[in-house]
């Protein structure tokens, strides 16, 4: 027997077998619930509201937990509740994982599955005793028109496997980019071809396992960048390696170790052997790419800030130290310039910016705000030092977008705030800051030049949290950096805001960024809000696109080479425009 489960607010209806656990159903439907305690009914983070229909029964423990959170009687824990009849549920935002990778709509586009790694099954013929062929010959005959490249290690392993199973008739050739023979595996292993996509962020790293036969994502895991102990931000890590070159290897080992732990965990969890993973695609900023490969960052550290590479062919995995098949490859998404890295080129691929008709902005908001402007066929990129205010750093009560962070605010007689996961407010994250300041401006608690009015000299957020004058100044600096970047890019391309057909907003803000509020502060120009597209973690989405499609990779490399770079600091108008932009003001020209 099955029941109809309606999910609000999206309105999707699922057919569910009776007795199934709600969280399993929702996870299968692609919703990433917050299941911190591992579905043990302990953390109370996966609450759902049963709007109509069969209210699942609740255990005493569940009732106590819900009561403690002061939730109405129609709330349940998704990891405990069973579907026992037709029902409609609403999933509160806080029950979904905050800032987990969102597969941008860009990748759902008509991306044909065409990975670099392909497996082809072959049949060995019985050797002719009179004139026996060499073992490798049946493979060479299979690809008569290709000049095969292979490593000695590939050949050795093939010979060793052959010794173990001399009579095997079935073999599988693993080809890279249709010309390189990575491996010859015994038996028919064509059904098992996996790849790894990595979003190598300065703070967070996300690793995703994909099936290269179907293009489907199998699982993913997120963790902190294990280089954090050498410094929280890009510059401090560059400095660590710059000031003491012996640290370069430490930084490399740290991140490779961290990645391998995550990859290992994913593979074990999904019962995939590392020998079936022949490729990893990494999208990260230029500095992170260099540090992963153990390349010196000396030239990145000081003017003219030169990277060692922009576009690279895929590298032998064994040299990179990544624990996938030692015969596999690691591909690094191309860096556009020193401060506009592979995370951005991957992001452009994820939204397929190149093929969007018209003029678009792509904005990735982080400590370094990267902005790319597409004016018809012409691309210009810049980076602007927004500083870590949007990540909660440099703000007296700031924090990352983690449970307990005020991420949303509005006004109803007084300031009303919402926290991530509904936990007691512990601090304010970037989107919360923007909301609070927008409300304060609207209500006249702050003047447009950013001065807190009134005797208290602070903006009360909750009983325990408040923003002070310096906090507002930090946000002004961050907003002005982004705004000035956008304005100069537009001006250099002889464009006005009205010429834009859309703005892609990538980065940690995700869907939580309040559009009218960010326009009120001047972070984004005023355009029709339907033209603003949140693309979430476009770096990961792009890494996946580059893993699943080699043609897309070639397009991405070409685009990276084509993008012009604009250095804001060198721009004569930057200072005047920046100072002007410090005032909170909506703008469209």
């Amino acid at each position, binding site marked *: 027997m099955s029941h109809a489960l309606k999910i609000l607010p999206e309105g999707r209806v699922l057919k569910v077998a009776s007795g199934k656990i709600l969280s399993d159903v929702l996870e299968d439907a692609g919703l990433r619930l917050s299941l911190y305690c591992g579905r043990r009914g302990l953390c109370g983070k996966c609450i759902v509201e049963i709007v109509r229909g069969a209210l699942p029964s609740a255990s005493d423990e569940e009732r106590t937990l819900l009561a403690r959170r002061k939730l109405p009687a129609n709330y349940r824990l998704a990891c405990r509740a069973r579907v026992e009849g037709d029902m409609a549920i609403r999933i509160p935002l806080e029950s979904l994982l905050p800032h987990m990778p969102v597969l941008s709509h860009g990748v759902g586009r008509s991306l044909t599955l065409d990975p670099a790694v392909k497996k082809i099954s072959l049949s060995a013929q019985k050797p002719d005793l009179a004139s026996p062929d060499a073992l490798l010959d049946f493979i060479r005959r299979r690809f008569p028109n290709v000049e095969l490249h292979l490593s000695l290690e590939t050949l050795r392993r093939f010979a060793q496997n052959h010794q173990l199973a001399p009579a095997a008739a079935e073999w599988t050739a693993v080809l890279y980019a249709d010309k390189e023979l990575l491996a010859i595996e015994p038996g028919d292993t064509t059904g098992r071809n996996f790849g790894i996509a990595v979003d190598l962020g300065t703070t967070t790293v996300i690793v995703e396992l994909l099936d290269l036969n179907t293009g489907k994502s199998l699982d993913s895991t997120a963790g902190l960048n294990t280089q954090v102990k050498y410094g929280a931000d890009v510059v401090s890590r560059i*400095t660590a390696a*710059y000031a003491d070159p012996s640290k370069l290897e430490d930084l490399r080992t740290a991140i490779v170790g961290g990645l391998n732990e995550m990859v290992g965990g994913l593979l074990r969890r999904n019962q995939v052997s590392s020998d079936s993973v022949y490729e990893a695609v990494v999208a990260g900023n230029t500095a992170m790419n260099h540090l992963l490969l153990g390349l010196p960052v000396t030239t990145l*550290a*000081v003017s003219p800030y030169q990277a060692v590479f922009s576009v690279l062919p895929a590298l032998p995995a064994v040299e990179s130290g990544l624990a996938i098949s030692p015969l596999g490859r690691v591909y690094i998404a191309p860096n556009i310039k020193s401060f506009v890295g592979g995370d951005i080129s991957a992001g452009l691929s994820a939204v397929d910016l190149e093929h969007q008709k018209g003029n678009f902005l792509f904005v990735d908001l982080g400590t370094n705000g990267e902005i790319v402007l597409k004016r018809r066929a012409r691309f210009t990129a810049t980076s602007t030092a927004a500083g870590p205010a949007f990540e909660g750093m440099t703000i007296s009560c700031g924090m990352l977008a983690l449970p307990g962070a005020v991420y949303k605010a509005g006004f109803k007689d007084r300031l009303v705030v919402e926290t991530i996961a509904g936990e007691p407010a512990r601090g304010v994250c970037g989107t919360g800051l923007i909301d609070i300041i927008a409300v304060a401006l609207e209500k006249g608690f702050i003047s447009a*030049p*950013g001065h807190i009015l009134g005797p208290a000299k602070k903006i009360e957020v909750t009983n325990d949290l408040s923003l002070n004058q310096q906090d507002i100044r930090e946000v002004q600096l961050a907003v002005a950096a982004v705004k000035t970047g956008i304005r100069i890019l537009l001006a250099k391309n002889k464009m006005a805001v009205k010429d834009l057909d859309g703005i892609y907003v990538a980065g940690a803000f995700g869907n939580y960024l309040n559009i009218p509020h960010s326009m009120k502060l001047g972070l984004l120009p005023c355009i029709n809000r339907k033209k603003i597209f949140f693309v979430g973690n476009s770096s990961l989405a792009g890494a996946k696109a580059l893993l699943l499609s080699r043609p897309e990779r070639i397009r991405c490399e070409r685009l990276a080479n084509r993008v012009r770079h604009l250095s804001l600091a060198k721009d004569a108008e930057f200072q005047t425009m920046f100072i002007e932009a410090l*005032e909170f003001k909506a703008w469209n020209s």
Partner: protein
Amino acid sequence: MESKDRLFNLMAEAVVTGNKEEAETLAKRALSEKFDPNEVIEKGYIPGIQKAGILWEKGEYFLPELISSAECMKAVMAVLKPALEASQAERFFRGKVVIGTIEGDIHDIGKNLVASMLSANGFDVVDLGADVNLERFIDKAREMDADLICLSALLTTTMLNQRRLIEMLKERGLRQQFKVLVGGAPVTKRWASDIGADGYGENAFEAVRLAKEIGPKRGLA
């Protein structure tokens, strides 16, 4: 006398509010009334920029307000310059400064602000710009017989060049000739004392205060 004080108050007010036209008009009026240009600067305008500084430190003023005040000072100086040069009186002068963003670093908004605040407060400032070769700092300082060398760095990597410059001065036996002030976002008081600089300013006003304190080695020129 009273009208003179009133005029000085108006001058200060014009600078505080960033009213450039008013500041210029008042300077012209002072000239037509044959006031001593040195006194006009010292008693009329400087208190204005100092008040702007106080408002900045209280958090009421931010960069735009401060820059308008500095712009006023610049405009006033331009009006008064011929009279100052012709003046027989002892010149209001606090010292000669060479300032720039250090080699390898192209960020210069903060440095520009310090430069304009120093000029607004009566220093002779030569701004070498950004990504300034270390040799150039030394050459220029020697050429103009500077009192102060001010080094800005906005990156933890380029900050290391502040140390190098001080070492170069030592190697050449020039360290005693110039005072060296350092500043910039990653720079701290600790860093300044580690590398043997003469001082560190947290912001433009502290830089001015410091420059006045340790400033001219030869008093009024």
